[in-house]
């Protein structure tokens, strides 16, 4: 780092202000990235990190402030301008065409041509050279749809590098990676810094910052709170800067006191949307008063498992019983009556009806259960009072009953879903990716709520791509790999790296019949 102190920063953003309507997304934010550093940009959801970086990448125009590249003021009207100034960005949601090859994707819009024709051979050669130069192994001629998420990310990075980016912005790059893939990414990122590039690393995972970044900038509510050297602050202090108050890190919970089995799954099989086997011979129990966590890289059958249990996807073999009652062939409504509640993975598409009001979404499924309707006619007064109480109890801020749910922030939407499902007083609660995309505050709330429900004697099944979440919330951990459960661990004794090996299919336990 010391060698870069003297030279001007590669990019500098001065007093950047951006309005969206009447509210300020960025409020006079200063930011810089120097050659040879990894600079983490931290903040809760909605703190304005992505807005700031979208401005740097030319996707948004600031209302005030200026941007300097290597000391010279520039105007970045579009991503093309940004590329011309050698700024590259890898978005959180990849922007790749699955049916095209790696090389075709990388040169999309800047095709290598010979006369009027696309010169695929040259494109492949260039990608191979690029990949070698940066130590990013990819095969240029393979179609993107056949690649794993980690490799797709590499393709995105190569795409940014293909126009020789000096400043590389990575927007929450580790959200979809296994611990091992994350380590690999960190190694690559460090390599870029050593080549003299500046890497801007957007994240809200604190331990990553400590691991990979030289400096960090914390944003809160649209403003820059601080820029620090990584060594200067502890994780705790950084978290306090992000949230503006003290945060509990570990989920506080007493040891579980599991009771009798509530959900019993035996030899369950099911298919994916493509009709390939997605869940293979899965057996496990979830007992009263425990949280069973399912760890695994996304796409290893967890989503299908949850959907089968919820009654949204048929089981092709096996048996599911809830409190001794066989629900293998039951419809969704019947399962819910039997005591199942479900916080779905895709909260906007499945968990709520975004256009319907907060009140309507909260009341869904409760007309009979909570006596919100009489003879098929909604009791609107009762629904209002009941929904209002849930809003307060779950601390859904900034929401009014008549507002469409779709206009709430992700954290508040998730609270609406959780409130509705827990209000069913379920025997068995499934939560899939319950804190995905949520900020520290909302995540903490949801974790506490799940633990409280466990202590109330609910049986809880948790699925999360976030290994740390599975490890800190669960009492027992199941690892899924290619549709099978390849390992079962006591959460207290589980080791992150060990779990990672199971998640990648390197190791597996021979399991007999699930306990019980």
């Amino acid at each position, binding site marked *: 780092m010391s060698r870069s102190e003297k030279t001007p920063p590669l990019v500098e953003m001065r007093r950047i202000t951006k309005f969206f309507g009447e509210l300020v997304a960025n409020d006079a934010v200063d930011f810089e990235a120097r050659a040879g550093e990894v600079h983490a940009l931290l903040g809760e959801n*909605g703190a304005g990190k992505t807005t700031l970086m979208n401005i740097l990448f030319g996707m948004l125009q600031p209302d005030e402030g200026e941007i300097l590249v290597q000391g010279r003021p520039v105007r970045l009207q579009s991503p093309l301008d940004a590329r011309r100034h050698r700024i590259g960005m890898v978005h959180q949601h990849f922007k790749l065409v699955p049916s095209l090859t790696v090389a075709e994707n990388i040169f999309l819009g800047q095709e290598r041509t010979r006369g009027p024709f696309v010169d695929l051979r040259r494109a492949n050669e260039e990608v191979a050279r690029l990949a070698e130069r940066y130590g990013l192994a990819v095969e240029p001629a393979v179609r993107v749809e056949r690649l794993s998420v980690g490799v797709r990310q590499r393709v995105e990075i190569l795409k940014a590098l293909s126009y020789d980016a000096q400043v590389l912005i990575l927007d929450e790059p580790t959200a979809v990676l296994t611990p091992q893939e994350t380590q690999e990414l960190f190694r690559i990122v460090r390599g870029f810094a050593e080549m003299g590039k500046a890497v801007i690393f957007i994240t809200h995972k604190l331990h990553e910052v400590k691991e990979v970044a030289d400096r960090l900038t914390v944003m809160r509510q649209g403003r820059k709170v601080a820029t620090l050297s990584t060594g200067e602050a502890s994780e705790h202090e950084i978290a306090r800067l992000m949230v503006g108050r003290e945060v509990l890190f570990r989920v506080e919970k007493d040891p579980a006191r599991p009771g009798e089995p509530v959900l019993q799954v035996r030899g369950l099989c099911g298919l994916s949307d493509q009709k390939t086997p997605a869940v293979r011979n899965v057996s496990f129990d979830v007992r009263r008063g425990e949280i069973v966590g399912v760890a695994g890289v996304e796409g290893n059958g967890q989503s299908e498992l949850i959907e089968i249990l919820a009654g949204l996807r048929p089981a092709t073999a096996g048996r599911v019983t809830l409190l001794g009652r066989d629900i293998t062939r039951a419809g969704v409504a019947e399962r*819910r009556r039997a005591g199942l509640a479900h916080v779905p993975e895709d909260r906007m598409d499945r968990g709520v*009806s975004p256009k319907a009001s907060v009140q309507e979404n909260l009341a869904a499924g409760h007309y009979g259960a909570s006596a919100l309707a009489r003879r098929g006619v909604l009791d609107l007064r009762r629904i209002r009072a009941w929904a209002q109480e849930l809003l307060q109890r779950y601390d859904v801020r900034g929401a009014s009953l008549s507002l469409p749910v779709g206009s709430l922030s992700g954290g508040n939407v998730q609270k609406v879903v959780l409130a509705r499902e827990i209000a069913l007083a379920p025997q068995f609660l499934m939560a899939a990716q319950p804190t995905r995309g949520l900020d520290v505050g909302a995540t903490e709330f949801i974790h506490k709520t799940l633990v409280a429900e466990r202590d109330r004697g609910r049986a809880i099944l948790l699925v999360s791509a976030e290994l740390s979440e599975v490890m800190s919330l669960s009492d027992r951990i199941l690892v899924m790999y290619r549709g099978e459960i390849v390992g079962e661990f006591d959460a207290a004794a589980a080791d992150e790296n060990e779990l990672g090996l199971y998640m990648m299919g390197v190791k597996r336990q021979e399991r007999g019949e699930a306990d019980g």
Partner: protein
Amino acid sequence: MAEPTSGFARLGRSLAPLLQPVLAILTALAVGVVIIMAIGKDPVSAYQSFLVASFTSRVRFGNMLATATPLILTGLAVAVSFQAGVFNIGAEGQLYLGAFWAAVTAVHLASLPAPLVILLSLAVGVLAGALWGFLPGWLRAFLHVNEVVSTIMLNYVAMLLTEYLVNHPFKDPTAGAPMTRMIPPREWLGSLLPPSSAHWGLVVAIGTVVVVAFLLGRTVWGQYLRFVGQNPHFAEYEGIPVRRVLVGAMTLSGAIAGLAGAVQVLGINHRFIQGFSPDFGFTGVTVALLGRINPWGAAVAGVFYAVLINGASIMQQNTSVPYSLVSILQGILVLFMTAEGWVWLRRRRRQASPPARAAEPQAGAVEGGAGT
């Protein structure tokens, strides 16, 4: 940059649903001015007949309401299907079947007491329309047959079927044109504003609006129907019987369109006449869209559209601006009410807001720093 005060913002939000229809109407009327000028007529006097004339006399007003009656019902029918996320483009066919079987019932049961005949005739019309809505609904829900295609095609089946029936088995032998026998006058729906053609069918239509508004807004079934329309994945996840709701919505939609036909027969034509409908069913799509697929919106939009249709006839007489201006305006209205641009605009606004929203609880603090 202009920053609206929160008072204006709130007012804007409560008026927002009206924005699109009002802008669509204004744009359509503006285009109309250009067209009228282009054909060398005077837009002021043309629009005077077009928009104002329907309110200048009791008869014109009553005739306008008579035109509005079937439009309110077909608009309502289409709105119900749209609420459930399915597209009943078959109101025209449902209306024809409803009209035909209502007429046949009224003619053939003439020996029963008149009020009973009227009720039975309306009920048969409803049933005929309901069947013609149930069919595409069932095909859609259980066999994944696209309901837009099936309802459009079933329109032709219904129109040609009634055409055959009214030309052969049910033709009035004394009439020169293909039509059924006349319904006895005591079985007609009474008039409302004599000597205009307005009739009690308007009350039936408004009553249906009230019932449907209650059904959609205040009952569990209506809530289910709207959930299915808004987000079928959510409905499925909640355990709502999505297929049954879809079939129910299409059946209800068809039933209302069938009622429109029956009411038209009992109130206006007093018999089934081949080709009696000037696209009441198809116009229902425009009415539903203009009314933002809301039951009360359909009532308002139905009246508005009737003003256009009747005004256009008066305009044609008074100023020789052709009636077909209405078709042009209708096209523009549909275009604007369905325009992708609106979706785009709204999405842009939504995209713009997430960072702002997160800051909302502390809005005061943020605003405090904003001006500096």
